[in-house]
């Protein structure tokens, strides 16, 4: 990798109030089900993730992930 080309930036500390936008791809049978069950049990977790349901994580194409980042996702969470 052309190391010298890496644009060095000062590591910015977690900004107060920064709410990342995260896209999730959840497997219908596993993670999506676990997420439903978390709801049923009223567990609480941060509201930053938007979910796309797929029938299996195997469905996820590299294009989807790259496209998600291009569309401004700060993170992509694939859950099998």
């Amino acid at each position: 990798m052309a190391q010298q080309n890496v644009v060095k930036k000062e590591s910015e500390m977690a900004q107060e109030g920064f709410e990342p936008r995260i896209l999730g791809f959840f497997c219908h049978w596993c993670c999506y089900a676990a997420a439903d069950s978390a709801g049923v049990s009223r567990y609480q977790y941060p509201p930053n993730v938007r979910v796309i349901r797929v029938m299996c994580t195997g469905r996820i194409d590299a294009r989807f992930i790259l496209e998600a980042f291009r569309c401004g996702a700060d993170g992509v969470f694939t859950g099998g």
Partner: protein
Amino acid sequence: MCTMYCPRPVVDTYNERLDITRAPHIDYAQAIPSSYYIDAKACLRVNYETCNLCAQTCTAGAIDFSQQPKELELKVGAVVLTPGFGRVDDEVLERFGYGRFPDVLTAFEFERLTCASGPTEGHIVRPSDNQVPKKIAFLQCIGSRDETCGNGYCSSVCCMYAVKEASVAKEHEPDLDISIFFMDVRTMGKGFDEARKRAQEKYGINVIRARVPRVDQVDGKLALTWTTGDGEHHSDLFDMVVLSVGLESPEDAETIARVTDIELNHYNFCRTSVDSPLLSSRGGVLVAGAFQGPKDIPESVTQASGAAAIASELLADARNSQTVTVTYPDEDKALEEEEPRIGVFVCHCGVNIAGVVDVKAVRDYAGTLPGVVLYEDTLYSCSQDALKSIAEKIKENRLNRVVISACSPRTHEPLFQETLRSIGLNPALVEMANIRDQCAWVHAQEPDKATEKAKDLVRMAVAKARLLTPLDQPTVDVTPSALVIGGGAAGMSAALSIADQGYKVVLVERSKELGGNLKRLKWTLDGQDASKVLKDMIKKVKAHKNIQVFTGSQVESVSGYVGNFTSALSRQGKTEMINHGVIVLATGGREYKPKGYAYGDSTRIVTQLELEEKLARGRGFLRNARNVVMIQCVGSRGDDMQHCSRLCCIQAVKNALKLKELKPELNIYIFYRDMRTYGFYEDLYREARKQGVKFIRYTLDRKPEVIKQSRGIKVRAFDELIGEDLEIPASLVVLSAGIAPGENEELSKIIKAPLTSEGFFLEAHAKLRPVEVAVDGVYLCGLAHGPKSLEESVAQAKAAAAKATIPLAKGKVAVAPIVSKVDQDKCIGCGICESLCPFNAIVLEKVGKRKKAKTITASCKGCGVCASHCPTIAISMGGFTDEAIMAQIHAFSPEGCEEA
């Protein structure tokens, strides 16, 4: 309208008398049928021939007072009794201040108070002054475990509902101080003990082990006094007292018994036996649910399916002789092909969603999205009348795509798909946005952010909806036979039931003989000879023309899908392939092997099953015995395994009584944490106490010690009552070892059926699908599901048999249309998809000179690994096309994201 005009107020029984309605009313919003009815007891017209206001105001002219009761005569092949349970007499409740003090409520009333659709919209207030109470006490065992009111049994559900109601109350009012007064904490169901522990820790609910004898009122507060296990007296004041009332036999039990000519037991429940828990004393009359004995929802549902199996066994010859079939209108293909006209329905789900998410804002936002022509909010989208109105609106507005923004598609999509079908639209044209399970419920503390998220989810769903296309509904034929894995009591019962219903069964048992754990049992819990029960069962199985038994065999592999499985069975190194339509998992469990307690150091330190085996061989070893010590929860409830093994308390009491019978002068000590002799087994517990068996409670931090000495065995334990250590020289120590899961891991992988963290198989839904597994066509029963008694295993096996027979009886199964489809023009025949498909559902075929991939629709599960790995992007997935997912990704960005 009629409700509005009725001059006659009526107590609302649905809301447990906490609210008032009118003579014509509807019980609750989701009631089925969802029409209004007139309470004949209260109506002025019916009783006094006056009024008639409602009939005049009904715009539909639907009230007709000239209707008379009619007697119908129906010819049926079987009767299933499911009358449920009755309520404890007010007279019993009055002893605890009910009816005298307004702030003493029954748990049923409290349930309505905590409910969002209840009389107070979920606000917990004292009936006396409408103020929020600060301190609430739950009193357990009201009308249960109480011979003075004739109910000597344990109602088996109150401990759970009390914990639930207390948790819900704490969620509404976090500052509440809640105490629950238990005699024993009986949360013995699957996963219940763990849930109870979590609730206790999370919400800080006080657990007090004491029975409160009475309730008094002092200065507008309720005074309780009680005595704890250490003999100390306590008293305190509470703002509200909730009575955890038990379940009684139904009020009309005697009438039912007379009319159907069946016998009742001494508590007026239906009499049944351990080896056939769903049969009444009269042939063809079956029983399920609380009338068979107090029980919770999953058990009632299990028994219900079990009863269906038995009725189906009885009437197998007459199957399909009287059924009618439903027809759907033809699809409106032209409308489906038009530009998307999307309707968005945003559900309140009572306050489940609307309590957190600003539903109206989400609805209005949906209206701004391209393609949306209708946007509305609904109170409960899944209720009958809401579905009807959604259907009407789809028609009125000529919608051809629908977005339901409500709960999870995993549970509710089929319902809305059905609605579309019923009005001539392809079911694939509905998309759901999950703003409840994955939004409102999990972001309850952040309503603004939850509303933002809900909007985003709706936007993404609408984006996908625009690209939805109609999909075919393929069906495949079913191989009409079953594979039952496990030859214990559960497996044999399931096999017999399926065979009796007229289908072939292959029964596979790993060991050399049938029987499983039942082989080790000497007596059933109701005192029958266990070996006789077992022998009868084995005889029937071996003689049945529809059952083929494979002992000493194992399942090596399973391929296929519901309706068309192919499995490899290995026996003595040889492999045999069999085809079958369904699978029943009855792999059993095993007795936990104790760690510690000097187990293994002496032949006089044994488990309960070892004791029964010893007794089966003769009673000689009791000759010089004086003291017998039993220790409960060995391995269970956080000792090593987390779960409660459910059975050991009853088993210990049963064996203690048998020992007493054999040698009355024995001193028997039982060290326990909570005695969980639920249901009618409470009788055994009471009997054991009566006969002088000594019960001593211990806690996990002060476990009894078993010390093997050079001569004899000593048990040292702390006795709470005297506050001192006890030392008992024991002639025999019996460890109530819990029930551990069998070796399920491998099978779980082969079948892709998930396990719980404890290693038992996981059911598809704890309440409503207790014998189904997440994999279609696979069913579950017996100890493979979790610890349970023989009686429960048999009922569950019948239930699994009912569910397993459904696809066999139908002869066809519908395949979800989410399968892959290969565009053979784009396919280059590389074979990557074929080699990656986990279900062998893609093959290469010759088309002209070249090889092309092709999907075997019936095998495809829609996982999409082929599509994501296709070099030429030639494979698309039904309902999850690249375009649709890309559209969702683009819609993920609030500003929208242009295609690159």
